[in-house]
Structure formats: C-alpha cells, structure tokens
C-alpha cells in the first residue's frame, strides 16, 4: 500500500479544511460552532485511541483517564493567577504564579499524560486482551479517585469552573490535523506496519523480530499524548472540569467510535467520531423534549450491538478509502483482505 500523491493531497485537504473553518466561523451561530468543536475533539480522541486500540489490538479503556490528566494540567497552568488565589488557595506558590497561554499548556498536559502512559504502560501492557481492558479501566477509576481527593490542586469533586474560554475552532482544527497526520505517518511507516502485525498475530510478529513491547508502549504513549491535549481543549471549551466528566460512558463512546469506524482505519475513526457526535447532539434535544433521559445511550448501544452482530469488521474495515491510497495487487490480500 502506498500513498497516492500525498505531497499534494495533504496540503489541499488542509487548505480546504481551513477554508471550511473560516466559513463556519463567519456564518454559523455559536451553538453550532460548539458542536463542531466537540466533533473535532472527538476526532482527536477517536483517532488517537485508534492508534492504540485499532492498530495494535490493545484494548484500552483508559483514554478518558489521560484526557483528565491533560485537562487538569492545562487548566491549572492556564487559570489566571489572580483567580487561582481564590479558587485554589492551597496551591504551592510556584504553581499558583503560573499563567500560561493555551498552546504550551496543552502540550505540557499532553506530555504529562504521555509520561503517565509510559510509567503504567510497562507493567500493564504485558496483559492480554480483556485483562488489559479491565486494567486500563481500573487506571481510569484510580485517576478519578486521585483527582477527587487531591483537593489542593483540583478542588476535588467540585472541579474547576470558570476556565477561560480559549478553545476555538482554529485550535481544534490544528490538533485534528496534527493527530491525523501523525497517525497516518505511523500507520504507513514501518512502525505502523509492525503495529498492524501485532494486531493480526502477536506471536508471529514476535517471531518476526518486532520489539513487541516497544511498539506497544510507543502506540500507547502517543495515543495518551493526544488524549491529554484533547482533554485540555475540552476543558477550555466547556470552561469547566470535574472528575466525573471523564466517565466510563466516555470510554465506552470512544470505543464505539473505533468499532464503528473499523479498527485500524483512521478515516473510519474520524467519520465515526463525526457521526456519533452528531447523533448525540441531535438526540439530546429530543431527549430533553420527551423528558426521556437515557434514550440516546440506549439507541447508541443498540446500534453498536447491531454492528457487532451484522458488520463485525466495522462500517469501514481497517483500510482507508481507495481515493487516498492505492493498493498493490497482492493475492494474499492486504490488511483489508483477511
């Protein structure tokens, strides 16, 4: 599989995306813009989760945990020093004085998430299949418990509110582009190939001499970095952050996106993120109108079950659409085939 005219294709895609962002900001109302922002953040989350889940078969439910880490770090760094004194009086002096702009705070938040991924990755990634899933779910719960109890830094269950509303569509767009670009490069570089090899058959890949642990950890850490960044963007979009924001339901929705998109497919994950966010946003007013809370989750859960039963390879399989890549004709079939 080789990229088709990537040199030209990506700039065109980015330019048209930027044009779209410009037009939307000019003509759309705030409500729709916020939804579009959510779409973008979910794309970052789904595509970065796909890096770990889809490419390597590592089934992590810990993504919202990394989001929480990135979100809180960014929020504490960005929060105006004057207001910090009121809201978080017990914060250590050196931290209370910080007042960072968005971009470096996002990056540092992402790095913190990545660092934690690195630390927990070494032991936890040795686990297989659903044991790993449960362990990462445990990680998510532990992160939440810690945040709830580190009141000095986080105000505990109250969370931090009144965060400056810094996230806008340009920032989200920038990070969507970076996430997709990095994932794309990884998927089509040798690292990506070895990741896919691990997904298909861990034992065989090991025999081929791929440093299994290293590849797994790399995928996990990169995925965590983007989740951390998305957490920061998210916090400064909704302008509040609480431990309960990063729920198991969120872990579930992210997994749904990857499954619907077809594990391993970047385009699929991105499209599924768009689709799912829009479905939720459309169902929400309906839910409120009917007073039937829970109905959107029910519909999504049933939809997911239907996909698992009737289209187990996801809506898009693990390949990318044919206009983006050209396939060498191989009799064994490429990753999409088997």
């Amino acid at each position, binding site marked *: 599989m080789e990229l088709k005219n990537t040199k030209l294709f990506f700039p065109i895609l980015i330019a048209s995306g930027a044009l779209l962002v410009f037009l939307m900001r000019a003509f759309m109302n705030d409500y729709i813009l916020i939804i579009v922002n959510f779409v973008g953040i979910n794309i970052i989350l789904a595509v970065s989760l796909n890096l770990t889940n889809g490419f390597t078969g590592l089934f992590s439910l810990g993504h919202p945990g990394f989001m929480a880490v990135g979100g809180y770090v960014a929020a504490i760094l960005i929060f105006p020093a004057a207001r910090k004194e009121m809201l978080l009086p017990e914060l250590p002096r050196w931290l209370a004085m910080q007042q960072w702009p968005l971009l470096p705070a996002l990056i540092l938040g992402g790095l913190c998430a990545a660092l934690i991924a690195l630390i927990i990755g070494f032991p936890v990634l040795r686990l297989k*299949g659903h*044991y790993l899933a449960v362990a990462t779910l445990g990680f998510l*719960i532990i992160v939440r418990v810690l945040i709830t*109890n580190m009141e000095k830094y986080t105000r505990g269950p109250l969370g931090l509110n009144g965060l400056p509303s810094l996230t806008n569509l340009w920032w989200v767009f920038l990070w969507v582009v970076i996430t997709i670009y990095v994932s794309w490069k990884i998927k089509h570089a040798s690292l990506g190939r070895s990741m896919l090899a691990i997904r298909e058959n861990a034992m065989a890949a090991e025999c081929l001499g791929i440093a299994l642990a290293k590849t797994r950890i790399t995928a996990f850490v990169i995925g965590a970095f983007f989740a951390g960044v998305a957490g920061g963007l998210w916090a400064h979009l909704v302008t509040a952050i609480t431990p309960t924001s990063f729920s198991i339901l969120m872990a579930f929705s992210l997994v749904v996106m990857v499954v619907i998109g077809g594990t391993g497919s970047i385009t699929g994950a991105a499209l599924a993120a768009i689709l799912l966010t829009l479905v939720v946003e459309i169902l929400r007013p309906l839910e409120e109108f009917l007073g039937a809370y829970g109905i959107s*989750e029910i519909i999504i859960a049933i939809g997911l079950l239907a996909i*698992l039963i009737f289209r*187990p390879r996801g809506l898009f399989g693990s390949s990318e659409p044919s206009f983006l890549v050209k396939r060498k004709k191989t009799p064994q079939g490429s990753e999409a085939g088997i």
Partner: protein
Amino acid sequence: MSLYFAEQMVNGLILGSMYAIVAIGFTMIYGILRLINFAHGDIVMIGAFATLGLVIARLPFPIIILVVLLVGVFMGIVIERVAFRPIRGAPQVTGFIASLAISILLQNTGILIFTAQPRNFFFPDYLQRIVNIGQITVRVLDITIIVTSLVLMILMVILVRTTRIGMAMRATAENLNVARLMGIKIDRIIMLAFAIGSGLAAIAGMMWGGKYGQIDPLLGFVPGLKAFIAAVIGGVGSITGAMLGGYILGFAEILFVGLLPPSFSPYRDAFVFGLLIIILLILPTGLLGRKEEERA
C-alpha cells in the same frame, strides 16, 4: 477495639458474601465462553429494583425471593440469546465490547424508567430488627444475607461437583468442542450458566439494596467490577475461587477503611483497583485458577 474489630469483620463478611454471589456468575460465564461480561453487574441493579417493586406490592417475602430469582434468570437467558449467541466465535474483544454495550443499555433503560435519582429501599420491619450476638449488634437482615449466601454457595458447589449437569458444565468450561463431541448440548449449558449466574446476581441485588438502603440505576456497575476483581483473585473460571475471592475482597476493603486512618477511606476504590492490577500482573491465574494454554 476488639468489639469494633468484630463488627468490622461482620461487615466484611456481608460485603464479601455479596461479592462472592455476584462473582460466581461472572466466573461461570468466563469459564465457559472466555467472556468478561460487564453487564453482569447490571443484573444486580435489576434485582434490586425488582425487589423494591415487590416489597411495595406487599408480597410475602419468600415469594419475593423466588420472583427476583426468576427475573434474574429470565434476564440472563434473554441477554445471552439476543446479544451473545449471535457473536459467539468472534474475537474475545468483540464479546467484551458487546457486554459493555448491554451494560449501558440496561443502565439507561433503568434511568429511562426510574430516573437517575436514588430511591429509598426498604424491607419489612422484621428484617430490620436488631439482635445482639454477644456484644455485637446486627440486623436480622445482615444475618439473613450471610446465611442465604452461604446456602446458595453450598448449593452451587453441590451442583457443580456432584450432578450430571455440573459435570457437563465443568467439561464444557474446559474444552467446548470436545464437550460437544460427548453429545453435550453446549447451547443449553451456556444458557444455564447465564441463567444461574444472573439469578444469583439478582439475589445479590436484593441484598445490596437492603444493606445500603438506597438504589439507583447505576448501582450495578461497582459490584459488577468488584465481582470481576473477586473472580480474578480466586482465579477466573473457578467457582470456589470466586467465592474465596469475594470474601477476601470484602474483608480487604473493610479492613482498608476500618483500620487505616480515616484520611485513607476516600481512596478505597483506588486501593481495590490497584490491588486488581497488581494481582493481574503477579498472579494472573489467581489463587485457584488453572494456567490457560496460549493460543496463537
């Protein structure tokens, strides 16, 4: 101090009993299908709501127990039939995601019907009465929970160890295809595992409601996860292991809260899940589990 300790032990026993009862179903389903069934905990919730409804309807208590048991059995069978049977043979992760979807489905159906507000749960007065054993004061309910769990567990061991169907269950758990070659109808065995496991979980829901006095549609998630941890401690697939794991977890949790300084208490769940991760890493087969052969 020793009185305090004794009371903590009773609490541990109660908590452990409930974990153990839920863990049995978890481990049975895992043993046969290698499926981690996240929706198992939500049967606990269904059991709790069913109990509340029946108590409000003023049915006699033995009938309530029977009906709750049947509600659990029915739910287990329906879930297996509708969701898990069609994806049998798919990769393990598919089953796991499906169970997550069912869990979300059940929780939100609960929210839709009962709203997310916690409801007060009550039992007839004679179960709330307080009795003294030596110097320890307990409720009749607490004793009922401990005794009922014990009886159910003994019945389970008898079923699995001595009956023909129990033998078939053990054989199916060890090797599904060879069990089929023996003429065992594995569809029935799987259905039975779901039925028994879910029936027990529903009974556990009844106990959970009685113990904590409040129920809401999301209450099943935590016992579900803890039951999973209990099953892992005991060795997933082993029924006696699940019981043992349930009690160990119950006591460990109570000791963590009861014996350490109060400032540690909020970290209870972090402790439990930390414990899980450590056990998965150093003792993946649990206390009584068998080593699983690695497949390519």
